[in-house]
Each structure stands twice: as C-alpha cells, then as structure tokens.
C-alpha cells in the first residue's frame, strides 16, 4: 500500500519533470502525431484504392499536388504507403527493440552485478550469439516459423540481445561499487531489488541512447530482410521494404527512398528527444 503510493508519486514526479523539458515534449508530440496517423491511416488514405492499387502509366512520378510524395515503381502513392507503412514499421521498431532490451538487458544486468563465473558464462554465450550473423538467424527463424510479422520482430529482436547485454553490463559495472549500492545492501535489500531499483535507474543514459537509436536499426533491418525476400510480403507497405525497393531507382527517382528514409529519421529524432528528456527526468541527482 505504502509502496504503491510512493511509486505513483515517483511516476508523477518524473512526468512533471518531463513536461518541463520542451524538447522532450516536442519529441512526444511528434510521436503522438505519428501514432494517430497510424491509427487513422484508413480515414486519411483508403488502403485498396491508394495503397495497393497500381497505375503503371504514372510510375516513378516526382512529388506533385496529387501525389505529395510522388509515386513508386508501381505508380502507387508514396504518402499513402508511408502512412499505412507506419503501422508496421513503428510496431516492428518498438517491439523488436523491446525484445532485445528486456532479454539482453536482464542478462547483462545479472552478468555485471554478480561478476565472476556468472558474468563469464553469460557473456561467453553472448559472444556466441554475437558471432552468428543476424541475417542467418533471421532467415532461419522466418524460414522455420513463417513470415508473420511477429516472427520478423522476434528475429530482429533476438539478434540485438548481445548488444544490450554488453551495454547494460558495462553500465551496471560502472555503478555497482558506488556508495548508494553499498548502503542498499547494508539495509538488506535483495539482489534483484538492488539491480532494478538502485543500479539500473542510475545508469540509464547509455541504455536509453542505444534503445532510441536501435529503433532505426530495427526498421532498416527489415529493409535487408525484404531484400532477400523475407519480411513483410507485397503488396503490404512497410518503410524498410520501400527503401530497399527504391534502391535501383536512386538516380532517377530519389523520392522513392528519400521519403521513407525521412520517416525513419523523424521517428528516431522524436524518440531521441523523448529519450534525452526521460533520462534527465529519471536522473535522481537532478531532483530539486
């Protein structure tokens, strides 16, 4: 009872501090707009007539009043495809990064906290996974389980696990010998409590940076997956696949790759602004 009240007040406090950060609010605003765009995509642009309907006579047209972002190699409207593609890409980006962060982060935290043999075993297993080419891992997962979106996310997520393990481990190692950890231990807190309540909140910076940047990486990996024919199947739109299909038209019709690329940039810009703000808001030292 007591702790839950404390938790809520802590969250409220973080939120208040976040609200004071203009850049973070800008990032949040962009994200909210994008999410709304994804939710109401059908209202803005009809799927059957604008996203998948082809018009070969008007292929590779540059931006115009009719087609804001131009048309692709099938004469489809790129704006509509980016809008509908955000449904897939945002989900892929966020979920697959969460998968890597949760699995890799926990493993790394334990490795860093306990050190010694635990560290050695976990990190050597991570070394093994680091060496398996992510494209091979993805191909196998997708070939074995199917091209459903969930497996694509799993494939991308799993290949990011070792990265987070190493980053979180390093962060934990750098703070675990500081006084506040000692004092938590002295009052008899359990190890998981120390890790998740004391250590992790104090070493969020590199984790947040990595997580917000990796969303771009995850969306780009769907581009390389779709290049070998895995990932989202045509005619469904998805940013990564749009990028890779525009590759051979780079010199004549740059807009095909430019706009999905910009969509990715704006997404991670928003995430980074929000991430920076979140880091400051979470930093216990910045409490007034």
């Amino acid at each position: 009872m007591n702790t839950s009240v404390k938790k809520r007040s802590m969250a409220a406090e973080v939120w208040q501090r976040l609200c004071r950060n203009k850049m973070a609010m800008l990032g949040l605003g962009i994200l909210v707009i994008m999410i709304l765009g994804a939710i109401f995509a059908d209202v803005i642009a009809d799927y059957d007539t604008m996203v998948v309907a082809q018009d070969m006579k008007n292929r590779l047209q540059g931006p115009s009043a009719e087609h804001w972002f131009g048309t692709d190699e099938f004469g489809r409207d790129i704006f509509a495809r980016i809008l509908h593609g955000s449904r897939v890409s945002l989900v892929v980006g966020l979920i697959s990064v969460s998968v890597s962060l949760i699995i890799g982060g926990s493993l790394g935290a334990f490795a860093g906290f306990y050190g010694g043999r635990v560290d050695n075993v976990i990190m050597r297993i991570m070394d093994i996974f680091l060496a398996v080419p992510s494209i091979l891992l993805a191909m196998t997962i997708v070939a074995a389980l199917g091209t459903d979106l969930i497996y694509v996310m799993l494939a991308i997520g799993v290949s990011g696990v070792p990265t987070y393990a190493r980053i979180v481990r390093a962060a934990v190692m750098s703070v675990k010998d500081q006084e506040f950890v000692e004092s938590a231990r002295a009052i008899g807190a359990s190890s998981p409590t120390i890790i998740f309540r004391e250590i992790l909140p104090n070493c969020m910076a590199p984790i947040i940076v990595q997580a917000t940047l990796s969303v771009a990486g995850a969306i780009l990996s769907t581009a390389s997956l779709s290049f070998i024919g895995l990932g989202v199947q045509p005619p469904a739109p998805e940013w990564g696949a749009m990028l890779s299909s525009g590759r051979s038209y780079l010199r004549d019709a740059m807009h095909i790759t430019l706009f999905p690329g910009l969509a990715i940039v704006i997404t991670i810009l928003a995430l980074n602004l929000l991430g920076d703000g979140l880091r400051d808001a979470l930093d216990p030292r910045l409490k007034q």
Partner: protein
Amino acid sequence: MHKYVIKRLLMLIPVILGVSFLVFFIMSLSPGDPARTILGENAPQESVDALRDELGLNDPVVVQYARYMGDLLHGDLGESYKSGRPVFGEIASRFPATLKLAFWGMVFAVVLSIPIGIISATKQYSITDSISMVFALLGVATPNFWLGLMLIIAFSLHLRWFPSGGADAGWKSLVLPVITLGTGCMANITRTTRSSMLEVIRQDYIRTAKAKGVSHNKVINRHALKNALIPVVTVIGLQFGSLLGGAVLTEAVFAWPGIGTFLVNSIKAKDTPAVLGCVIVFSICFSIVNLCVDLLYAYIDPRIKSKYK
C-alpha cells in the same frame, strides 16, 4: 592479470564449439538443399544427387557435425561446398580487406565522434549540440547503400576525385567506403559519448573539482572523460563487431573484395563449411575485441580491476 587474459583466451574454445554447434544446426534446420542451390534451377536431379553424395550430405546431421569437428580439431576448416576449395584460403584471401575497411571505418568514426560528443555534452542544448544530434540521427537512419551511392555519384561520377569502387587505387579507394561504413557508427558513438558525459558531469566529484577551482578543460579531460568512457568503449567494441558483420552492403556498393559478400552468398547457397568458417573467424575477432574492451574497463576504472585476478 596475465592469468585473466590467458583464461579468457582459453574461453575461446567453448565459444568456438558453441558457435559451430549452433550454426551447424541452424544451417541444417533451414530448408533448402545445398546441392540444388549450387547447381542451380537448370541442373538435372541426377547431378544433384551425385553432388549430395560427394559432399556427404546424405549422412545424418550428427555424423556430418562430428566429421566437421574432427577436421576442425586438426585446424582444418574443411572445403566449401560451392567451390570445393579450402575454406581457410577463401577466408584468408578476403578477410584482410574487410578488416582494413572496418579498422579505418572505426578510426574515422572515433576520431570525429568523441570530440563532437564531448562538445555537445558540455554545451547541452546549444546550437552545436542540436546540429550534432541531427547529423547523428541522419547517420544512424541513412541506409549504407543510399549514402554509398550518393557519395559515388558526387565524388566519383561528377568530381572524379575517387574511383567508384574496387580496392586497387591505394588510399583513394578507401575514402568513400570508409566514410560510408563509419557514418553509422559515428552517430552511435557521438550520442553515447554525449549522454554519458552528461551523466558524469552531474556527479558530485565533478562539482567538487569545479568548486575547488580546477579549470574547465582540465575537469573535462582529466576527470569527466575518463569516467564517461566505460559505455563509450562498450559501444565502440560493439560497433566494431557490427562493422565486420555489417559491411555487406558497403562492400557490395563499392565492389570491395571483402568477406561480407562471400558470407551472404554462402548463407544463401547453404554452404555450411564456408558459413562456419566465417562465423568462427568472426567469433574469434569479437571475443578478442570484447576482451580488449573488458581490459580497458579495468584500465579506466581501477575499482573494476580487482575482478581480473
């Protein structure tokens, strides 16, 4: 310390065993027949069967694995299914080029990104900070092939400063691929440096140092930087790994004779010995880089040193 290094180098053995086991079974689980893939769509089934027989693919997977490991113990990486040549030679003729590209890509990234990261952190929310952030994000979100082709069009086709590809024009042929490869890493290292510098700058001992009247530059360079380095070094180590493994597209765009294209083609051809060879070489590289990173932790933060007895 010596003991620790030796212990870690010995740990390479289980890592290689684990990697080869994992990859071997992944390869044998994934659908597709190497013999069919090598001979192509047009080859008659009899030839495919003959090749399967020659490659020993009709034996149970466990037998194949045992045979492979037996050879590996003698330092033999086997022969590529596709070319029939020893995998060791195939890798030895390509890996140096990839390593060279990755090394200079890393140098390029580190030399630029750490100063930029520090400046951004010390002048948080300034114009410099914002510009560097936007560039960093562009760097992370720009696909390698896009940047690479743009650089070729600008500097090779129009300005004619550098060759469009290949590795036979000395340092000139390195410039564009290094920039292409290094940009993504640069972004990551810049952001990490900035944010862990910010973290450190707020710590009590920095305030104390400043309060004691130590000059700003000295505080940054002596005290803050060293303590901010752990996450940065970690990211550099990880990025080096992704440079080795992720050079595929850059190598393809610049016709760079590295291992990336070879690995992807081997994966597609289900050429298990070739894939295993590459993966084993990668795992040795990653393990050594990670060992260096762990040793650097001890160097940066003496408290961590105590573990490495």
